């Protein structure tokens, strides 16, 4: 597939397949197209040429509701987290359940367990601006996994947090991968990639010159 915006080609002529249960890092210089590729992976953007299939469905053949259905199988963690600041952090984490028409009241135990898993027990009623950067990233991860998605996409998840907190976040993502989830992390943090490779069989894709390259094992 390829993706262009206006007259400029942002991603060109790439072929990529992400098998279920795999762990990928997406790296490359700023502006290389990591975020664009992730947005293509959850249907936020549509390829301008070629074909993109998510869960064996041609994304360009889907309408807006069809893409919304697909997104319930894909958890996304943004660098800036994207919370609704007027809702408590628990309500934000439960938002995917709400929009899918599932009972939040009936999922209180799961919600509490999930908040405990990401280390946010006792912070349920806090508003997003009241949380630290690390807490917000972990809350974003909790929201991304509350629907038990098949795929977790994380865009620079450690961009705004310290090393210790980024290790904690990586550990959570590795745990998810061990549960069978496909994990794709866009990052230019090589330290994070090295740390991950000691825990999980991760592959590294480097985007440069608008093309994907398989990175070397020395990363």
């Amino acid at each position, binding site marked *: 597939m390829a993706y262009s915006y206006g007259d400029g080609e942002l991603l060109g002529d790439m072929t990529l397949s992400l098998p279920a249960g795999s762990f990928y890092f997406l790296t490359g210089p700023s502006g290389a197209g990591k975020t664009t590729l992730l947005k293509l992976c959850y249907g*936020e953007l549509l390829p301008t040429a070629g074909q993109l299939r998510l869960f064996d469905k041609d994304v360009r053949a889907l309408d*807006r*509701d069809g893409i*919304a*259905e697909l*997104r*319930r199988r894909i958890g*996304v963690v*943004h660098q800036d987290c*994207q*919370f*609704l600041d*007027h*809702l408590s952090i628990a*309500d934000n984490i*439960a*938002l*995917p359940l*709400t*929009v*899918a*028409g599932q009972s*939040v009241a009936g999922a209180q135990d799961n919600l509490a367990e999930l908040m405990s898993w990401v280390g946010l027990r006792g912070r349920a009623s806090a508003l997003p601006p009241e949380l630290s950067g690390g807490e917000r990233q972990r809350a974003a991860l909790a*929201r991304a996994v509350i*629907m038990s998605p098949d795929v977790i996409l994380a865009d620079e998840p450690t961009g705004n947090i310290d090393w210790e907190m980024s290790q904690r976040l990586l550990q959570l993502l590795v745990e998810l991968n061990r549960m069978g989830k496909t994990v794709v992390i866009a990052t230019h943090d090589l330290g994070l990639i090295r740390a991950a490779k000691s825990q999980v069989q991760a592959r590294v894709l480097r985007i440069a010159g608008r093309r994907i390259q398989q990175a070397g094992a020395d990363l």
Partner: protein
Amino acid sequence: MRDVIHLNKITDFIIGDAQAERAVPPTGFTARLTLFAAAVMAFLAVFALALSVSAARLSERWASELAQSATVRISAPQGQMQASSEAALVVLQTTPGVASARVLSDAEQRKLLEPWFGPEMPLEALPIPQLIEIIEDEEGLDAEALRLRLLGEVPGAVLDDHARWRAPLVAAAARLSFLGWFSIGLIFAVMGAMITLAANAALAANAKVITVMRLVGAKDGYIASAFVRRFTLRSVTGAALGMALGVAALLVLPTGGPQDSLLSGLGFQGASWLWPLAIPLVAGLVAFGATQAAARRTLKELR
């Protein structure tokens, strides 16, 4: 069964999804604007409705009460008045379409003239024509034929079938009623336009909310419903307040004048008092349609 399903849909819409509702932050400015606009428009709609209903009632009364009656006016010297009246009655009794005819008494004629001359005026001294009231049967009379007969048999007798002055009055009242309904249409159109503006402002202010909701898998129908429900309920609430104020204002208008006066008869009678209850419902439908269209358009643009 279908009615039950529709009722369930309406109930679900009114009760709503509290969690979904909370996903859209409260927007004070657009909330107050919608409430205020709906209240003002509903207040005006009550008066337009009252005008329309009153004019229609008046038109109907004039048309039905006067259409079946006519008057013969007899002008004759004082000594011949009695004979001319009796001759005219004979003509009328043998005229097809006349159900009854009777000579108005002096007291009745005095009462008719009182509004112009006052109660103290010595009418006996004035050369006042004698009036004969005719009530037509269902088939009605041939006015032109009767005029010709009166001309030949009772000189000085003139038939007035009220058509000359009744027709423009009935037409004016009917036109006024139409203008009332047209005004109601304009009022709801303006209400729809204002709610659309407020909804557009709210949607634009909540672009981030829409992005986040989409990110977590919300369908556009779900996002739109949160805005539509909020604006519809606000509009119904505002319109109900405006309607109540409008009805209260109508109740304190002075009454007791002549029955066929529009000014003293402006308002509702009997079951027509139920008409204003339709205003909040129509306001709700207008708000629903306007917000739904605004939300769909905005969500499409935010692809």
